């Protein structure tokens, strides 16, 4: 096969067995790879009703046909599993070098099953696959884990080429927002790290020396060079702004648009947000890239403020916004420190910020009794943010409750409406009350409130009419991006480079993708995820937003007074999707998507 390697590595942790299976070419074509293909495996092999932290759940690391192929931004891998945070299927995406290394080792996917009897890590060196003991790694932070595994290899050259994804103490402690980290890149959302921890799997280390072939040969090379030329010249793509400021430019854009979630989404603007030139001057050590990406939005940073010393990665826009303004904090050094701690301990920065903001509002409204907390947790208290992040990861004191996610926290104190979650997952750092379509996209995302599940079309953000059709199409296209192994920030987001993606995908695989068949694969994936969720117990009632988004007009900023008109958009969205009024895909729709066998399993 071209693009795909054509091999799946299956690791049964209970038995300690590893074996390789052939990837069925027709299934690969129908679901592309990454998110789509892994969702297909999970749907076929896992009962949606199981406890996500039980050995019956599976954890899938999946690359796409463009991962490591030489396609621009072809570096992403997806972690797909049933989420302990949402109870839904989730796919959490990360960049760096891990995905390509997995392909170079000769695998499209790794499927982890069961639970290791003792802490273990998986070591892959091409065809040599070994489950190794990880007792000595248990309790270690993610950078420490990577360093120790590299030292164990005892060969500095091989260590350089070995790429590692690991969990921190939070994953071991089954924190429901635990992430899987790879050199500062996070598969952050939905608690994939907790699933890994429940399997006693500390890390996956990969080194590969094989090559990846593409179908298009010279044509592929020419297309890459033409695309690079376009990137260099196109002001719309904005190479310079992206490489200079990374995702910090989104902080500036959201501040200007009044869409920076503030004080648990009560407002869309906060005074005192630093200018991005100041953030850059204050923090940046070096801008670095993921594999095959000329944009280089990864930030290697250092805190100069002696109060919060440290060095690490980020904060990216989402991290800054959620641990910062969402908690009423603007202090750059404190937020950066909190972000580092999240990365080291292995928790999702977006959900961590959302949970702390929720706790702050609960406390300020008097719903959390004084006896439950060791110190007052008020909006704007930067020390509380830094401390609570650590308490969540370690499940210390009230951190044990916070580690369950903001929905369970707010429900525990009798006020679930204070939790800014969709399907129990914290909403990301773009305030939906400034953008109707985003509200619809959050409400209907299969993984709950998430920041990379639709496109960004700011020119149409206040319009209600037409959002359903746009959101549907964008969600399907983004499923294609996630399945191909490309980056949402470049191929999705503001740019939505559909033609460029199709060119890369078809030239790499050569299996005859057209715009229609590519988009249909995205729709197929989206509907398959939906079927999984329905079977898991999700209903149309879960396709909603926190009451605050629908009823309480947002304070401050350009969108002051706006609410999300979800009820006006959702019925049309269901109709366009080919779903009935209960949000269930109709038999005709499933037939059109080739999901006839899957339909039989919806209970």
């Amino acid at each position: 096969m071209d693009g795909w390697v054509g091999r799946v590595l299956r690791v049964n942790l209970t038995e300690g067995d590893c074996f390789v299976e052939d990837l069925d070419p027709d299934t690969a074509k129908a679901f592309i790879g990454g998110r789509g293909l892994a969702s297909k495996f999970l749907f076929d092999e896992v009962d949606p009703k199981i406890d996500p932290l039980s050995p019956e759940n599976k954890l899938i690391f999946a690359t796409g046909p463009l991962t490591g192929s030489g396609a621009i931004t072809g570096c992403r891998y997806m972690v797909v599993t049933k989420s302990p945070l949402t109870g839904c299927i989730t796919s959490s995406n990360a960049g760096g070098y891990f995905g390509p290394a997995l392909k170079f080792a000769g695998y499209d996917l790794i499927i982890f099953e069961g639970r290791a009897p003792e802490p273990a890590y998986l070591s892959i060196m091409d065809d040599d696959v070994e489950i190794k003991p990880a007792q000595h790694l248990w309790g270690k932070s993610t950078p420490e884990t990577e360093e120790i595994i590299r030292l164990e290899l005892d060969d500095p050259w091989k260590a350089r080429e070995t790429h590692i994804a690991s969990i921190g103490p939070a994953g071991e402690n089954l924190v429901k927002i635990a992430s899987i980290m790879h050199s500062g890149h996070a598969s952050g959302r939905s608690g994939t790290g907790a699933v890994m921890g429940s399997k006693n799997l500390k890390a996956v280390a990969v080194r590969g020396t094989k090559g990846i072939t593409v179908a298009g040969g010279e044509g592929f090379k020419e297309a890459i060079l033409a695309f690079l030329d376009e990137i260099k010249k196109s002001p719309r793509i904005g190479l310079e702004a992206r490489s200079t400021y990374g995702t910090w430019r989104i902080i500036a854009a959201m501040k200007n648009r009044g869409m920076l979630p503030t004080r648990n989404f009560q407002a869309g603007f906060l005074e005192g947000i630093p200018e991005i030139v100041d953030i850059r001057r204050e923090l940046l050590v070096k801008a670095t890239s993921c594999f095959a990406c000329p944009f280089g939005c990864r930030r290697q940073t250092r805190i100069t403020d002696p109060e919060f010393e440290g060095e690490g990665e980020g904060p990216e826009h989402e991290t800054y916004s959620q641990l910062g303004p969402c908690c009423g904090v603007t202090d750059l050094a404190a937020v950066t420190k909190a972000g580092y701690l999240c990365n080291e301990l292995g928790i999702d920065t977006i959900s961590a910020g959302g949970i702390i903001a929720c706790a702050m509002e609960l406390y300020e409204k008097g719903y959390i009794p004084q006896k439950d907390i060791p110190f007052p947790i008020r909006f704007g208290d930067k020390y509380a943010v830094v401390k609570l992040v650590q308490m969540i990861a370690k499940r210390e004191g009230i951190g044990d409750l916070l580690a369950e996610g903001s929905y369970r926290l707010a429900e525990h104190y009798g006020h679930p409406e204070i939790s800014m979650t969709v399907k129990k997952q914290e909403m990301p750092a773009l305030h939906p009350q400034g953008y109707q379509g985003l509200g619809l996209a959050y409400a209907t995302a299969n993984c709950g409130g998430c920041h990379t599940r639709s496109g960004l079309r700011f020119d149409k953000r206040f319009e209600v009419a037409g959002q359903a059709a746009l959101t549907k199409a964008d969600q399907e296209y983004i499923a294609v991006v996630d399945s191909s192994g490309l980056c949402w920030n470049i191929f999705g987001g503001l740019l939505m480079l559909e033609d460029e993606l199709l060119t890369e995908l078809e030239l790499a695989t050569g299996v005859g993708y057209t715009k229609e068949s590519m988009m249909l694969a995205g729709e197929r994936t989206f509907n398959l995820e939906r079927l999984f969720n329905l079977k898991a117990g999700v209903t149309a009632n879960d396709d909603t937003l926190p009451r605050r988004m629908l009823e309480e007009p947002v304070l401050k900023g350009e969108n002051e007074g706006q609410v999300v008109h979800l009820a006006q958009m959702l019925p049309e969205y269901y109709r366009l999707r080919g779903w009935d009024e209960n949000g269930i895909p109709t038999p005709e729709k499933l037939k059109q998507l080739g999901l006839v066998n899957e339909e039989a399993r919806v209970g």
Partner: protein
Amino acid sequence: MRIKIDHTKCTGCRLCELACSRQHTGSVNPQKSRIGVFIAEDFCLPIIAGPYTEAACNSKGMIIIDGREIDECVVCRASCPAKPVFKEPDTGIPLKCDFCGEPPDPQCVKVCLSGALTVVEEEKGKLYHGISSST
């Protein structure tokens, strides 16, 4: 013609490695590239494969780049018995940059948008082992 390296501009995207291996082997494989990027957290240094040496040298010195001490062996361009770098992983055949044939058309430079790799006509005294001065 020489390829000038400004490591301060390199972001570690390794598109050069991909282009190189694609050009020389027809498949994408950084292990078969004639250019390799040494990547540390805040430091990226592209190294272009030089001539093969039959014996490993004894100079295990450290050199200082940007105030950082780096093992000379790491930045050495030679393919030698002491390290598995710039050799075909399956056959051990040493690899050396050939500027992508005659006339020279280095693919690595073509895909480098960061400006870390540029083609320059040779100027004496300004270049050392392909590493430009960053000061």
